[in-house]
């Protein structure tokens, strides 16, 4: 099987340009997460791949099988693309049993009844719902419905399975379990998948590659570790993880390091900016990399501890100084009052 290749896709809904030239590729066995805030175009991109939205430029293909090509005026109907799609609302047909929901795709492919029965049962077995085949969707729990929706998309062995926020309708606790279950299923069956989500933790947990979208363009793409540990833009840095934001003035850039001035103190981090000296810059540092100390030192700011909060496995500390608020984690509570907050050089990006 060949790669799924989306090339320079542009799409308009009404007057709104939702996708402004997006390219994505999925190699066999790879799970790609489309991540982004709401309105970034991630679901639209997924629907365009499925054939439910029509772009006005670009192309979508798997090997020689061209799904869409604006230049050559090719637009293969959704039913001819042979992909599997799991809807956010699951979209199980309420008038069909679980068996008939899952078996419909095979029936449309004119498979003999015996084969349909065998393959539906096998797929339901894989998702652990073999005993519920005769139920109707409304007789199932939310988690079970979600599994049926996945089974329905898997049963005819599509080259790529598309998942549109499949976990967002589950409550928080169930979501974490389902996430682990889904990742295991994908790895065991060796599936290729595109997974749309707005939850960066979910994206990192499930995907081999993350494509981060921002307002219809790709902000950054790469393995989860790259996006988390090496953001190339302020948007990526702020979207991934929980962050502290320092506003300051750039005083020096050299050897990949940038130094900014905050409250008259010099703070140095990794340079991610080409701005001139004296311009306003932003420093971003992950919460878990900030720590605090009782003495002054390099890259430390004097701040006042306002509110320690107990989170169970650790404490969260909130420091303030004028307009600046900094949050950090600690294993033990500290006394309210003045402390020195350190931003380690290798964990601060200056944009």
């Amino acid at each position, binding site marked *: 099987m060949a790669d799924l290749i989306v090339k320079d896709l542009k799409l308009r809904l009404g007057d709104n340009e939702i996708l402004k030239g997006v390219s994505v590729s999925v190699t066999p066995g790879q799970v790609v997460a489309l991540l982004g805030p709401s309105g970034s175009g991630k679901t639209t991109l997924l629907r365009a791949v499925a054939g*439910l939205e029509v772009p006005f430029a670009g192309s979508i293909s798997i090997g020689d099988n061209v799904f869409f090509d604006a230049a050559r005026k090719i637009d293969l109907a*959704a039913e001819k693309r042979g992909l599997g799609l799991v*809807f956010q609302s699951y979209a199980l*047909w309420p*008038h069909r049993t679980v068996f008939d929901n899952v078996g419909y795709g095979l029936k449309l492919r004119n498979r003999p009844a015996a084969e349909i029965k065998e393959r539906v049962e096998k797929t339901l077995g894989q998702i652990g719902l073999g005993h519920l085949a005769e139920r109707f969707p409304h007789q199932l729990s939310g988690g079970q419905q979600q599994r049926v929706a996945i089974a329905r998309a898997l049963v005819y062995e599509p080259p790529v399975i598309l998942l549109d926020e499949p976990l967002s309708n589950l409550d928080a606790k169930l979501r974490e379990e389902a996430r682990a279950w889904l990742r295991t299923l994908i790895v065991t069956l060796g599936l290729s998948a595109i997974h749309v989500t707005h939850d960066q933790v979910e994206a990192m947990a499930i995907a081999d590659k993350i494509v981060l979208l921002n307002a219809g363009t790709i902000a950054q793409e790469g393995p989860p570790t790259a996006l988390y540990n090496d953001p190339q833009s302020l948007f990526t840095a702020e979207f991934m993880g929980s962050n502290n934001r320092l506003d300051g003035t750039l005083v020096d850039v050299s050897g990949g390091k940038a130094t900014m001035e905050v409250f008259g103190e010099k703070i140095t981090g990794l340079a991610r900016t080409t701005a001139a000296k004296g311009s306003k810059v932003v420093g971003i540092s992950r919460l878990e990399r900030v720590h605090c100390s009782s003495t002054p030192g390099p890259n430390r700011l004097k701040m006042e501890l306002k509110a320690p909060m107990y989170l169970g496995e650790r404490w969260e500390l909130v420091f303030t100084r004028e307009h600046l608020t900094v949050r950090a984690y600690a294993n033990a509570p500290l006394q309210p009052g003045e402390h020195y907050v350190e931003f380690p050089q290798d964990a601060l990006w200056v944009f």
Partner: protein
Amino acid sequence: MPIVVYRFLVLGITTLAVAMPLSLVFYQSFLTAPFFDPSAKASFAAYSFVFSDDDFWQAFWTTIAIASGMAAIAVPLGALLAFLMVRTDVPGKKYLEPLLLIPIFVSAVVIAFGYVVAIGPVGIFSTLAKEVLGFVPWNLYSLWSLIIIAGLTHVPHVYLYSAAALRGLSTDLEEAARVSGANPFQVAINVSLPMIMPAILFAGVLVFFLGFELFGLPLVLGDPQDVLVLATYLYKLTNKLGVPSYQLMAVVVVVIIGVTAPLVFMQRLLLRQAQRYISVRGKGQKTQPLRLRSWRWFAFGVIVLWLVVTVVVPLFGITLRSFVVTWGEGVKLRDVLTLDHYRELMDYPNVIRGIINTFGIGVIGGALAVACYTAIALAVHRWNSGWTRLVDYIVMVPRAMPGLIAGLALLWVFLFVPFLSPLKSTMGSIWLAYTIVWLAYGMRLVSGTLLQVGPELEEAGRVSGASDLQVKRDITIPLIKYGMLASWLLIFLIFVREYSTGIYLLGPGTEVIGSLLVSLWGTGAVDLVSALSVVNVVMIGAGLAVAIRLGVRLHG
């Protein structure tokens, strides 16, 4: 078959079915003789004849007066009724609700006959009043009586739209007024009704529009005083010149459509605005009805009084009349009781055919009509194209043609188009006319059901490998099955009730109860008319009972 072919096929057939009768009427109005007459020439003669006829202008202004008077009566009463039923703890709401809708479902001619035999000059209640008081304190045959009866029988139309709007309003607005010191009546006048003004306005235009369509009431109640409205003027015109004056009738039809078409368009705009208002609904919390306290039974009394005047009097009158030999001063009930009128019905083959045909058009014709409406709705459903707007307008056009006119136009189509003429004297012609006349209503029923099908259910079918038409067959239609069943029941009720559409198409083989009633009334056969009316009401009552039993919402 590719979906595009299906769509344009349906679009083409629908356009043809709607445009043919309409364009034929326009064409005819500019001729000097019936269109099939070889001597017919193009001219404005028919227009100048009609516009110089005093009777026409008399009928035109009477129609305006009746339509306005009706709206003036029905709008405040309907709005108030909606407030009482939706928002307050008026007693017996559960039982009142279906009764309120009876005037919508009972044929207007039946109601009119009912009034004549109940409170006409020698009516049951009139003679009773004369015995007690020595005189009859009302005069049924006057313009004012006509306006009042038309107004009262159209209260339910206003009620339906106002009630729907009120249900969408958050109750805390009313509770706030109550806490601030307003009594229930003040709450209604100052808070609730102003909030649903767009819906009330819509209902007002609707009632005015229905006033232009009015045919059964003025035919029966206006005739003795020579009160003509446009529809009855048209009906009388048939023989005004001794020969069928098609061109004159066509001109009157053009005038009526010239008034109703803008009204239909206006209703469309207003409805959209009204619905925008409704969308400002609160959360779906259980609402506490406003407590009327001492006003409770007074309000109940007002509603019951309206029901007695509008429903009980005519229906009781017609029923009693169908069981007595004669009625007049000094007649004792037990001396005149009889079942003869019902036995007599059986002596007339055309009446028997009419009863069978009416049932058939309701059950079979209704099912076929719903199938057609569904076919059109499915063709437009999820069609991302400007053509859907065209369909919207085409579907609206027949709404501007009152049944009488649509029946006439269809008759001409059957005369005009050679390969259709064999259909003319079959129930096929009646079915086609009914289906076209109720196109807008039926489409609203079916599209309302289709709206409830989530788009992702259909998209899931597409992605699984089903073509557009397979999705419609395997997913959409099974999902709207119950909605289609409900639509069938409502269309049954309407087809059984219909009287004006079949009048011009009436002939051997195309008898339906409604048009038979009108023609029998013309011959003065009160006994037969009463019995046949009761048969009609019983059929509708049975349909209503089934609908209520199945939990069908009686209003689209």
